[in-house]
């Protein structure tokens, strides 16, 4: 069981009335990774997470947590799971420390866990204040402290950086990386913002209209290298020359060519061919294809009924 994925779902389907929120979802979240679960609004991210936490029942399919089938009756499996779903669940009339103490009591944990969680999330100084007076960022951090209280092996976070400013988001990322690295926690992180996930996640799942359109390591998603942009003095001649050498070339405006050249060596070869042909190369660079572009492409493909 040690190699089993932290989360695995098979044929997971959930409907709300006649609307299908999730359709045959097959997630596989390896242990120890940070898994970015991406999708536009209404894609089914929160529904998936509610199913993973046993807050909803699936209409079809099954869920496995660390290889064990998770059902409505098997709540004990949630001992390994800490969660933050959408906004943190807090009691505004209690202090930060009391909020943590509540969950600590329910889980039967030693009192020291409260201080550890507060320290990790940097809330020690404000722990004695009632949560009503907390800022949004502090509440999110307290939500993470709450999820982290039982030192779970798996953290499920639904849009945790919602409403945070750029500095707060960066802080979050650092915190998640620290957890994953120091405590070998598997993090399942949902978001509709690619920028939020692309810097922390090593695995990605992309969901659209309840269906998974991509799943794999983040490198694979970026696997198809963007083309090489070559700016030269005589683009027509250069294009001719390269095509003759077997390269696929598209002529752009502004004296630029875009050349399909996957590796670094290919880039050097293109450069040499041009120089040898007497063409002046002014610039040679790769056009950075952001995850955003890739994401939109995947979603468009899925909408058009195409597979990836």
């Amino acid at each position: 069981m040690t190699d089993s994925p932290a989360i695995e779902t098979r044929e997971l389907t959930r409907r709300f009335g006649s609307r299908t929120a999730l359709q045959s979802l097959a997630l596989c979240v390896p242990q120890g990774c940070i898994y970015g679960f991406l999708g536009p609004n209404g894609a089914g991210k929160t529904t998936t997470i509610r199913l993973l936490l046993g807050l909803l029942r699936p209409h079809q399919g099954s869920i496995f947590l660390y290889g064990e089938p998770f059902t409505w009756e098997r709540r004990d499996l949630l001992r390994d799971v800490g969660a933050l779903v959408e906004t943190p669940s807090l009691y505004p009339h209690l202090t930060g420390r009391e909020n943590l103490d509540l969950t600590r009591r329910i889980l039967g944990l030693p009192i020291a866990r409260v201080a550890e969680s507060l320290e990790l999330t940097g809330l020690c100084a404000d722990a004695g204040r009632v949560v009503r007076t907390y800022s949004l960022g502090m509440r999110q951090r307290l939500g993470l402290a709450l999820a982290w209280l039982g030192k779970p092996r798996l953290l499920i976070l639904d849009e945790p950086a919602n409403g945070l400013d750029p500095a707060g988001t960066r802080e979050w990322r650092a915190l998640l990386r620290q957890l994953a690295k120091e405590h070998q926690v598997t993090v399942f992180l949902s978001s509709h913002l690619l920028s939020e996930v692309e810097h922390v996640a090593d695995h990605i799942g992309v969901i659209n209209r309840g269906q998974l359109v991509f799943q794999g390591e983040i490198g694979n998603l970026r696997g198809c290298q963007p083309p090489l942009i070559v700016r030269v003095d005589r683009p027509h001649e250069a294009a001719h020359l390269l095509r003759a050498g077997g390269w696929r070339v598209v002529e752009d405006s502004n004296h630029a060519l875009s050349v399909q050249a996957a590796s670094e060596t290919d880039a050097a070869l293109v450069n040499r061919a041009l120089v040898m042909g007497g063409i002046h190369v002014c610039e040679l660079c790769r056009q950075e294809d952001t995850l955003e572009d890739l994401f939109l492409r995947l979603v468009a493909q899925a909408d058009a009924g195409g597979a990836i």
Partner: protein
Amino acid sequence: MSSFFRVLTAEGLKLRRTLAFRLAVLAPLFIVILQFTIELVRGDEESGAPPGTNPLMGFAQGILTFWTIVLLPFCAALIAALLAALEHQGENWKHLLALPVPRTCIFAAKWIAAVGLLSLSSAVLVAAYCLAAGILQAVKPGWSAASWPLPTIIQRAFLGLCATSLLLSIQMWISLRWRSFIPGLAVGVVSLVVNIIILPAGMFAANLFPWCLPAIAMAPHSPHRVLGVAWGLLGGVALGMIACWDLSHQEHQ
């Protein structure tokens, strides 16, 4: 069982600084202070009680009547709504119900918290009565020889509390099932009005209507007192168990 006690201690901590807790203390104080003021300002001859009756018992009767007919059912409705709102407001169910403890424990602990608050109210009522009665005895010349009916009062307050179980279970079920506090309060207020109408009419149906049961249980000469207490208590426990089962099988959407 240990999970249940762990959830229960958490439930206790949750009550700190809550309106529900303040209400449980202030509601009985309000009725005692009101009755105390009335007794204080009126002369002995105005009390209306037949000569020879124990004025301390009359004082208690005034408090208990208003308490059982109006305040106790109303407090039960408010406490149920406030306790449920603690979870509904912050969407806390999604956290609570995703914890590795049986869901029935979570709901059962809520019930016990509500029962605890109503018990606290009853205890405050008896304590405040003692204090007020002591003061009245000291300041009113006609009252100094009156004997203290304390056991009777404690017994009646306790029986009234037991008989409240059924209406409390109904209120808790409604309040926990619906996010809005309106259904719970609406049922509470409408039932209270029905209670006030059918109780003095002396209909037998009043013995079965949950909101009439506290008054029936506390009335000294009611022929159906035992029935009222038994129906209120056992019905409340049974309904509470059914409600906990139902709530723990609900999805949290």
